[in-house]
C-alpha cells in the first residue's frame, strides 16, 4: 500500500511542521511590531528561544506526578499526529486515511486535555486558572470550529480534509461564494481563539492573572518548556494550514514532483504570511476582551457558520 515516496511525503511534512512553526511565530511578531511602529525581534527569534530553552536545566515542582512529565510529550505527539492529516504542501496526504477533520479536532483536544491536566498537577492556583480558562474557551471553540468546516464540507460532501482541499481547488474561483466567505470568517475567528491571540488571549503578556495558555504552562521550564512552546507553535501552524488549504487550496501540489512541491511550499508560505498579517492587524487594532465577553465573539462565529449552511441550501436549492 505504501510506497517509499508516500513515506517521504509524510516525513517531509513532519519536518516542515516542526521547522516552519517557529518561523510563523517570528513572522507574526515582526508584522505586529511593524504595525506598532517598533523594530521588534528578528523573525528567527523563536528558534533561538527554543534552542536556549533546550540547553537550560528544568525546575520541577515537588508536588507533581507522572502526568506533569508525560503531558508535554503526549500533547506534542497528538498535535503532530493531527499534522499528518492536514494537507500542507500536497493535497493528497498519504496518511489522510487515518482521520478526517473531526479526528483533527479531537486530536487537538487530546493535546489540550493533557496540557490542562498538567496545569493542575503542580497545585498552583495560576495553573488551575489557566486550565479552567483554556477548557472554557475550548468548549466554545470546538462547536464553532466544527460547524464552520461542516459548512465547507456541505459544499463538497465530505469532512475528509484532503478531499475538501482537492474538491475546492478543482472548482477554481467559482468556489468563492457567500457561504464560502461566511465560513472563512467564522473559522478565522476560531483561529484567533485557537492560537491564543488578542482579543481572546495575549501571547505577549507577563501577568499571570490575564493569561490563558501562559498561565497553564507556568510551571514548565527548560527542555519541557521547549517542547510545550514548540507544540503550541505547531498547533498555530496547523490552524493556519486549515484556513489556508481548506478555503484557498489553490497552488497546492496535487502530485509528487519537485517543481510542484517547491511551488506549493512557496505558495503556502505566502498564504500563511498573509493570514499572519491579518492576525497581526486584528491583534494590533483590538484590545484583549474580558473573559466573559468571549462567548459573544465565539457565538458570532457559530452564527456565521450556521448562516453559511443555510445560505448554501438557499443558493444551491434542494
Amino acid at each position: 500500500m505504501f510506497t517509499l515516496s508516500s513515506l517521504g511525503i509524510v516525513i517531509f511534512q513532519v519536518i516542515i511542521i516542526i521547522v516552519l512553526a517557529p518561523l510563523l511565530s517570528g513572522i507574526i511578531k515582526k508584522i505586529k511590531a511593524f504595525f506598532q511602529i517598533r523594530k521588534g525581534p528578528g523573525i528567527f527569534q523563536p528558534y533561538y528561544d527554543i534552542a536556549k530553552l533546550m540547553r537550560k536545566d528544568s525546575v520541577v515542582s515537588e508536588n507533581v506526578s507522572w502526568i506533569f512529565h508525560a503531558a508535554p510529550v503526549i500533547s506534542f505527539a497528538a498535535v503532530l499526529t493531527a499534522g499528518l492529516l492536514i494537507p500542507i504542501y500536497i493535497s493528497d496526504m498519504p496518511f489522510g486515511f487515518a482521520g478526517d477533520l473531526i479526528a483533527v479536532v479531537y486530536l487537538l483536544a487530546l493535546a489540550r486535555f493533557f496540557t490542562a491536566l498538567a496545569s493542575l498537577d503542580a497545585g498552583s492556583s495560576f495553573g488551575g486558572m489557566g486550565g479552567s480558562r483554556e477548557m472554557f474557551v475550548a468548549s466554545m471553540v470546538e462547536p464553532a470550529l466544527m460547524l464552520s468546516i461542516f459548512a465547507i464540507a456541505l459544499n463538497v460532501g465530505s469532512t475528509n480534509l484532503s478531499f475538501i482541499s482537492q474538491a475546492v481547488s478543482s472548482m477554481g474561483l467559482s468556489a468563492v461564494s457567500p457561504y464560502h466567505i461566511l465560513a472563512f470568517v467564522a473559522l478565522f475567528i476560531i483561529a484567533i481563539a485557537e492560537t491564543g491571540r488578542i482579543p481572546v488571549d495575549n501571547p505577549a503578556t507577563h501577568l499571570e492573572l490575564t493569561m490563558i495558555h501562559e498561565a497553564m504552562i507556568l510551571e514548565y521550564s527548560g527542555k519541557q518548556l521547549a517542547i510545550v512552546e514548540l507544540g503550541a507553535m505547531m498547533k498555530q501552524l496547523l490552524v493556519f494550514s486549515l484556513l489556508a488549504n481548506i478555503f484557498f487550496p489553490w497552488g497546492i501540489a496535487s502530485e509528487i514532483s519537485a517543481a510542484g512541491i517547491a511551488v506549493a511550499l512557496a505558495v503556502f508560505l505566502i498564504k500563511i504570511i498573509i493570514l499572519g498579517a491579518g492576525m497581526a492587524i486584528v491583534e494590533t487594532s483590538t484590545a484583549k476582551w474580558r473573559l466573559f465577553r468571549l462567548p459573544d465573539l465565539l457565538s458570532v462565529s457559530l452564527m456565521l457558520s450556521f448562516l453559511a449552511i443555510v445560505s448554501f441550501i438557499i443558493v444551491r436549492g434542494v
Partner: protein
Amino acid sequence: MIYTYSFYGFFFFILIGAALSIIFNKKDRLSTSASFISAAIASIFGIIFSLSVIFGETFDLALPGSLFFNFGFSVDRLSAFFILVISVSVFAVSIYSVGYMREYFGKKNIGYLGFLYNIFILSMILVVSANNAIMFLIVWELMSVISYFLVVYEHEKPETRKAGFIYIVMTHIGTGFILLSFLILAGGSGGFGFEGFRASGSTMPPLYKDLAFLFALIGFGAKAGIVPLHIWLPYAHPAAPSNVSALMSGVMIKTAIYMLIRVFFDFLGAGVLWWGFLVLAAGAISAILGIMYAIVEPDIKRMLAFSSIENIGIILLGLGASMIFYANGSPALSAIAAIAALYHLFNHSVFKGLLFMGAGSIIFSTHTKNIEKLGGLIKKMPMMAILFLTGVLSISALPPFSGFVSEWLTFQSLLLSFSSGDSLVRIVLPASAAVLALTGALAAFCFLKAFGIGFLALPRSEHAEHAKDANGPMLLGMGIFAVLSILLGILPVYVIPFLDRITGTFTGESAIDKSISSDYFGTIIMPASQISMSTPSLLVFMLILLSIPLVILFLSGKKQGTVYETWGCGQPVSTARNEYTGTALSKPVQIWFKNLYRPVRELRATYSVSPLIKQSFKFESRIGQVFENHLYIPVTGYILSKSRMIKFIQTGSIHAYLAYIFGTLVILFMFVILGGK
C-alpha cells in the same frame, strides 16, 4: 443446543447466587463470594448465549399459558445484543464487587444485597427477552422494585430514603405511560403478544400510532433519564452502593433504549419523520443539559449520573438520525446511524461502569464523594488512577479510546444528511452535530475536573491523605473494563460489522459495503462521503511521533531537573489550601450559563463585639434546581390540591372500602355482560 444450555445455565447460576447469598447470610465473606462469583459465572453463560443468538438463530421459548398470560421468551439479535451488554457489565462488576463488598462487612447485611443483586440481573435479562406485554410489565416492575431496594440499601441515611422515593415515583410515572402505550398497541392487535404488536402496529391509524409513540417515549424516557424526566438519576445513582450504580447507570437505563428501539422500529414501523426529529431534539437537550449539570457538580457520583443523562442523549442523537433516515427512505443510512447509537451504548456501559467502579474505589478508601476533599490520589492509588484515567479519556471522546469512535460515528451519521433531499434535515442535523461538539468539549472539561481535582496535586483532606490503592478484585474488575475501552476504541473494524448484524434486523438493511466498509490498518471507510478513519493507525502514529519529544528530552543537555516548590509569586504556597478548587475550575461555565444554572449564593457573617469586627464568614453557593422548582413542584402541588378535593371518599373505614370493591365488581360485571357480547 448451545442456546438452551447457556440460557438455562444463566438462570441456574443466577438463582444459585441468589439462594446462596441468603443461605450464607451471616457469613459476610462466604456470602459475598457465593453471590458475586455465581453472578460472574452466570454472566459468562449470558455472553455465550447472546453470541450464539447473534451469530445464529432467534431463540424462542414459550411457556404454557392462557390467552393473556402466555409467558414466553423471544431473543432475537436485538435482545441478544442487550443481553451481551448486560452480561459483560455484570461480569466485570461482579468481580469488582467481591473486593468492594468488604466496605460493608460487619456493617450491613451482605446476604440481602447479594440476593437483590442477583435478582436485579435476572430481571434485566428478562426485560430484554420478554415476548409479551403482560410479562414485560411484570418483569419491568420487578426490575424497578428490586433496583429501588438496592438504591435504599443504605437506608439509615435520610438522603438515601429521599432518593429512593423520587426514584420509585418517577419510575412508576414511566410505567403508567408504558402501560398506556401498550394498551393502544394491544387495542390494535387484539392481544398482548409482541408478535401481534409487530404485525398490526404499523397499520394502526396515524393518531393511535402517534400516541403509542409519545407514550412510549415518555414512559421509557423516564427510565432512560431523558430531560426533563431525568431528575431521579442524580439522586438514585449516588445513593446506591457503587457496584449497583455501575450496573444501574451502565446497563439498567439501557433497557429503556432497548424498548424504544423495539417500539419505534419493530412495533410501529418508524415511518414518521417528526418522530425522528422529536427523538433527536430529546437527545440534543439531554446531552447538553446533562453535561452542563455534571460539570458544576462536586459530588463525583452525582456528576457521573448527570453524565449518564448526557450519554443517553448522545445515543438518542444517533437513534433520532436513524429514524429520520428511515422515514426518508434511506435504510442504509439509517443502519449506520443505528450502529453509531448502539456503539455508543456499548461504550457507555463500559466506561461508565469503569468510572462508577472508580468512584466506588475512591469512596472505599477515602469515605468521601466530594471531589473538593480529594486530591493527590494519583500517588496514593497509582493503579486505580491509571484505570480511572482510561475511563476519563474514553468518556471525553479522545482518540484513540472508545468514546471517540462512537462519537465520530454519530457525527458522521448526522453529517450524512448532506446527501438528503430534505432541506430541514440538512439544516437540523448539522446543527445537532454542533450541539454534539459542544457536549464533547464540555464533557472533556467535566472529566478534566474529575481527574485533575480528584487525583492530581496535593490531598485536600485527611481522608485523601491516607488513601490506599484498591484491592485485587476491584482492580481486576476495573481492569477488564479499561482494556475493553481501549479495544472498543482501536478495533472498530470488528465491532461495526458485529453491530451491523443487529441493526440490520430492525432497519431492514445492512450498512456494510453500502454506507460503511473496512480496509487495511483497521480503517473504516464511508464511501458516500469519501471519509475514512483509523484509530489503530492514529495510535501507531502517535506512538512513533512520541519519539521526537522524547529525543529532545533525553538526548540534549542535563537529564535531571531540579525539584523545588511550586511557584507562587515568591510566597511559600505549597499547601492544599492554595490549590485551585473544582468549583473554581468550572466557574467560567457557571457564569456563562448563569441563566440556566440560577445559582444560589449566601454569605453570612457573625460579628463579635461590633459590626466592624467580623468573627467568621459562612459562604454557600449551589446550583438552583430549575427542573424541581419550575416543573415538578408546581405539578405535584397541582395534583395534591386536586387530590384533596376527592379526599372525602377516603373515609378510613374498612367497610366503606369493601363497599367500593363490591361496587366496582358489579360495574365491571355489568360491563362484561352488557358490552362484551
